[in-house]
């Protein structure tokens, strides 16, 4: 049985349905990310688990206990907010010990737990600082320590890194993941940043317009998107309208250019309108390696992105992005050059129209 179950949950604000028929089972110690654009319902779902919103329909069960209507301050849930939400009038130690004092723990236990938490976030000398004396990253680490001090059953993180700069974001997300693994705590992480979701989650729930689009491991979500939205939202994707030519062979045509796909097209008929997609990194120049699809192209543009070089190639009448690792010893083609690119049939995804 799952540790946290969100069963058929929906939430309406007036006539607007923010979350619709949401179903998810989370195992103990698992970190699940809710990924989606603004307004997709990910934060509303998190707030329902936290108890800040009551579902319009459905039930939320934690460790076998129905908590759907339980007040927020009675749930065994810790929360980390985007804006840190540290109490400005309290020191770091005061913030971390806040919940412990409410639980009426002994002074000795509170001291011990505060020190333990400060060590956990690598800030042992900051106990007497006030939030305004800390950087954004330090404030968020204190917020994490404050939420973890109560040893909650579930940790909820609502876009905790959005307000931080890029470098701190990367280091702090690794820290959050390491702490979550070390404590074995069940966690839900809300983000609109796909890189964040893919890099730290056991599973990702991609959401759109209040609905779950796909649930899966980061590998599944990135490599095998089940819907057009997931394919477009997660990672960079080339997509173009195509027509099914031979369902049995996985053959589709885009502007007269034929692609072979490994997708099972048997459910589709010849002449069906579909969308075919290829990730930029799945293309390579023809002389690299022989693959299933050999395509004539013209180089349209070249963009240097550091570790990656993005080359825009025109295949038929459609421009595709192709990513190749930066190799300073290889000569790049020039704009206007004609050549051939290839990709395997597994790289060609046929998603639907």
């Amino acid at each position, binding site marked *: 049985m799952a540790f946290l179950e969100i069963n058929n949950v929906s939430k309406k604000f007036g006539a607007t349905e923010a979350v619709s028929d949401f179903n998810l089972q989370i195992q103990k110690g698992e970190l699940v990310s809710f990924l989606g654009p603004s307004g997709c319902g990910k934060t509303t779902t998190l707030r329902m688990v936290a*108890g800040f919103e009551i579902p319009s329909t459905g039930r939320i069960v934690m460790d076998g206990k129905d908590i759907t209507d339980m007040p927020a*301050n009675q749930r065994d849930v810790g929360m980390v907010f985007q804006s840190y939400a540290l*109490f400005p009038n309290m020191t770091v130690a005061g913030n971390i010990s*806040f919940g412990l004092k409410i639980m009426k723990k002994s002074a000795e236990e509170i001291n011990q737990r505060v020190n333990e938490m400060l060590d956990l976030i690598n800030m042992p000398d900051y106990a007497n600082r*006030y939030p305004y004396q800390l950087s954004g990253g330090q404030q968020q680490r204190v917020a994490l320590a404050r939420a973890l001090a109560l040893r909650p059953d579930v940790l909820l993180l609502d876009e905790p890194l959005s307000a931080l700069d890029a470098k701190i974001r990367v280091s702090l997300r690794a820290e959050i993941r390491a702490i979550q693994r070390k404590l074995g705590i069940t966690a839900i992480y809300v983000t609109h940043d796909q890189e964040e979701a893919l890099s730290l989650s056991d599973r990702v729930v991609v959401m759109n317009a209040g609905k779950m689009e796909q649930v899966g491991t980061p590998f599944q979500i990135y490599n095998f998107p089940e819907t057009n939205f997931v394919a477009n939202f997660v990672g960079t994707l080339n997509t173009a309208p195509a027509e099914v030519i031979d369902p049995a062979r996985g053959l589709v045509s885009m502007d007269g250019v034929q692609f072979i796909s490994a997708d099972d097209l048997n459910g589709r008929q010849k002449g069906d309108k579909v969308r075919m997609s290829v990730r930029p990194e799945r293309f390579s120049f023809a002389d690299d390696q022989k693959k299933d699809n050999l395509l004539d192209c013209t180089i349209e543009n070249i963009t240097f992105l550091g570790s990656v070089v993005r080359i825009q190639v025109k295949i038929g009448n459609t421009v595709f992005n192709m990513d190749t690792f930066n190799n300073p010893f290889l000569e790049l083609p020039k704009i206007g050059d004609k050549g051939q690119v290839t990709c395997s049939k597994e790289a060609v995804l046929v998603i639907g129209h």
Partner: protein
Amino acid sequence: MKIKNIWAWIILIIGLVYFFLPLLATFEFSLRMIKDRYTFEAYRVAFTDAKFYLNFGYSFLWAILTIIISLLLVVPTAYWVHWRMRKMRPWVEFVTLMPFVVPAVVLVFGMSRLYGGGLKLFGTPVLVLTGTPILLLAGYVILSLPYMFRAVDTGLRAIDVRTLTEAALSLGAGWGTILTKVIFPNLRIAILSGVFLTFAIVMGEFTFASLLYWPAFGPYMEEIGAMRAYTPQALSVVSFLLTWGSIGLMQWIGRGSVQEVAAVH
């Protein structure tokens, strides 16, 4: 540039003269009680009058009670409006502006009529409050509403009420703890502003105390003014010092907080 500076100085001096000249004149006049000499005789007379202490004491008591009632009424209301009912904010703000629209004298007569037997149930007057200080205190609370609400509202806008409340809730706090440990301490300066403004208003208030027949500093000053020449001027100066003292105290207690708020937001 220099001409601009000169104009700035001229405007500043005109402003200072406009504000301080009448006060200096009042102070100077208050020192002339004994002919041809500057003395503090008027102040001695004022401070040796037992009625001064009685009226001042009553006003002080009314001020403290008004502050307590206002805080209990305004802080939770403003907090709830910010936390759960943001759309209601303009309406609550409108209600708090009533003392600027309805003159105190109209308010006091209206209250006297309604709560002096005007409110009837099956022909029997109910809620007869004349003769108790409830009407006076209610009037003072209404008078202080625009200042108290605005001060607290400004303080609440400076902190993220919703997230702080949710953070406290997720840590197991109840409403009492949230208000006393999280919201009140972070509104310290805003609340103090409201408290001192209310204090200054109640200490000098005349209409309510006079028409409801309760001893207070305002009617006392008016009474002394009608009978004596120098003592009322001395009391006016004392009144000013009291107000300035309150403002000074407010700024002293609030020192350093601007930096904290700026750093946090």
